[in-house]
């Protein structure tokens, strides 16, 4: 099969193009800029038929996407870090409006101090906005997931927006071979957006009005239910993708060498690729370790995590962010899911790679050794601090 070679950011743009996004509204921010530039090129060359609103801020980008989606158009944007934080109000608005917008977010550390490198604090801070969150590990997965995300989000049982994450630079600016599927095949997979309600002069409705306490709670419950129902749809859409295009990305959680594993790490994004190398090295030494890659963080795949808990004695959760107060979010959510599980293995949190710090295979091997020995000494460890190695925080 002939392959293209492209960055994660190009894969975002081609994903939006193949999904036939009709309205793009975006504002440049490092390291997302090449997504915007590629989309501008695709629109300018006529390859992509879309209205591209070059807005004056990310807040307006999401506002314009919301209005476009409410008018029945498929809408796309991309951002990173401070851009995502500036959108915060509108992220909640998009989910509350039940609009299937898809957005690329290039995970970047938040300032101060200024940093443009990989870190998940930006998207983790938006965990509660009602968006589905997909974390990708390759350019191929980015392209495929943008298209899949529209199919999931536009399902009438779901109708909530989706973020497709890439690690800054490790993925956004790294060239990888990518199979770009033919437009016709994508069209077969993803039909045009068919909203159950939209702004239409022939059938006028008012959207997003004030709702008093006797109805508001039901609106929120419906979002909660949609998020729950999205689990099944995410799984089915990935399976359908595999049937059509010959590759799966693991649904909600991708497992690697989990058969007969004694210990596992839970990780997301590009560090999962590194983890596979580390796991192969450990397996070569006869150590039974595996990886559960969190592809989807919202909805949280608690059932898959409980299944892993049945299979292993010890789990290490790797977080590329920290929710100041108690542990990384992947850890606290994993621990929360396991409380209701019949089997509760040893679990420990490793905070690693903050602000784009490199994560070499030997670091993950070091963590895997600790996980295998069910090392005690606190729940949360900041791994690889410069001053004196690792430190426990609680």
């Amino acid at each position, binding site marked *: 099969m002939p392959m293209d070679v492209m960055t994660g950011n190009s894969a975002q743009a081609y994903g939006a193009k193949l999904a036939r996004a009709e309205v793009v*509204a975006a504002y440049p921010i490092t390291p997302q800029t090449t997504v915007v530039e590629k989309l501008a090129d695709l629109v300018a060359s006529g390859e992509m038929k879309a209205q591209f609103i070059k807005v004056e801020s990310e807040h307006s980008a999401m506002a314009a996407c919301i209005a476009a989606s409410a008018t029945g158009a498929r809408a796309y944007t991309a951002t990173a870090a401070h851009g995502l934080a500036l959108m915060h109000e509108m992220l909640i608005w998009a989910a509350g409006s039940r609009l299937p917008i898809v957005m690329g977010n290039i995970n970047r550390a938040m300032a101060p101090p200024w940093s443009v490198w990989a870190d998940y604090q930006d998207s983790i801070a938006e965990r509660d906005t009602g968006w589905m969150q997909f974390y990708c590990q390759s350019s191929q997965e980015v392209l495929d997931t943008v298209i899949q995300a529209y199919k999931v989000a536009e399902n009438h049982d779901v109708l909530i927006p989706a973020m497709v994450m890439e690690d800054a630079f490790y993925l956004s600016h790294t060239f990888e071979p990518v199979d770009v599927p033919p437009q016709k095949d994508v069209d077969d997979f993803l039909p045009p957006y068919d909203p159950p309600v939209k702004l239409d002069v022939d059938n006028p409705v008012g959207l997003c009005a004030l709702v008093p306490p006797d109805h508001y709670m039901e609106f929120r419950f419906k979002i909660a239910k949609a998020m729950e129902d999205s689990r099944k749809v995410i799984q089915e859409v990935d399976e359908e993708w595999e049937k059509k295009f010959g590759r799966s990305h693991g649904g909600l959680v991708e497992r690697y060498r989990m058969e007969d594993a004694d210990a596992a790490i839970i990780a997301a994004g590009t560090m999962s690729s590194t983890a596979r190398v580390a796991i192969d090295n450990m397996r070569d030494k006869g150590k039974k370790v595996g990886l559960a890659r969190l592809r989807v963080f919202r909805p949280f795949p608690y059932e898959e995590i409980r299944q892993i808990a049945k299979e292993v004695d010890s789990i290490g959760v790797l977080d590329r962010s920290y929710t100041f107060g108690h542990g990384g979010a992947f850890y606290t959510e994993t621990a929360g899911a396991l409380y209701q599980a019949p089997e509760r293995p040893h679990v420990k949190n490793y905070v690693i790679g903050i602000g784009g710090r490199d994560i070499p295979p030997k670091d993950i091997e070091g963590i895997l050794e600790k996980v295998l020995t069910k090392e005690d000494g606190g729940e949360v460890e900041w791994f690889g601090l410069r001053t004196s190695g690792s430190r426990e925080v609680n």
Partner: protein
Amino acid sequence: MGKLTIPQEELMNSGHIGCLGCGGTLAMRYLLKALGKRTMITIPACCIAIMSGIYPRNFLKVPLLDVAFETTAASASGIRAALDAKGIDDVYVVGFGGDGGTADIGIQALSGTAERGDNIIYVMYDNEAYMNTGIQRSGATPFGAWTTTTPVGTTGDFKKRPKKNMVEIMVAHDIPYAATASVAYPEDFVKKVMKAKDMDGTKFFHVFSPCPTGWRYSPEMTIQIGVLAFQTTVFPMYEVENGVYRVTKKPAKRKPVADYLKLQGRFKHLDDETIKIIQKNVDRNWEMLLAKAEFTKKFAE
């Protein structure tokens, strides 16, 4: 322009929950008469967003999207882009915001829309304060006014800066059409909307919308207050088409500003000296407007 007939069709239902004598509702009603039913409208947090009706009620017969406070213009741009993507070119897209939502928190998005020249109509219905939240001062509150955040007190803490001039700000964006209008003069307002609605680009209307609740006057005086604002030239009627100013309606004889101020409780604390300052500012602004109209005449196409 020939004889004007204001369309009879009502696109705003009766039964809204606005205050008695609300100027803003008249602005909406006349606007929709001028535009007709192939119109989509987006409204931020403001009085109209509430008085249009609490779910599941809605007082408009055109599609309405309620949006976040600072996003009116960006939302209108998004609607227009979606219509363009669908090949729908016979629908007017309107952003309809209050003075706070326009001149303060929404000015960034509005500036972006105007700079891009997005094909929308933006209406700022100006009641000169954050009325929906309870009469707090905005950038459009006039010099001298009492509000709940310029409460006068014992230190004379009334609004000490003049009203932000939104028409000038919009003219600086090189848009095809910007105009003032008043709910006291529906023919002038409707005429302007009909003139501008099919122009390509961003059109801006600053509509004077007296507010009995916030301005502290009796509800039946809304139109009288609007007439006096015009007659004193506190709020003159003009339009700016491609940078060319034209005063659309001139008072036969200008009345003193005190006639306008004295009817409103929000100005009752003003002493004669302060009223003189206001008169001087109004005189100066009026003369400048006439001078601009005279100066730019030669640039008319």
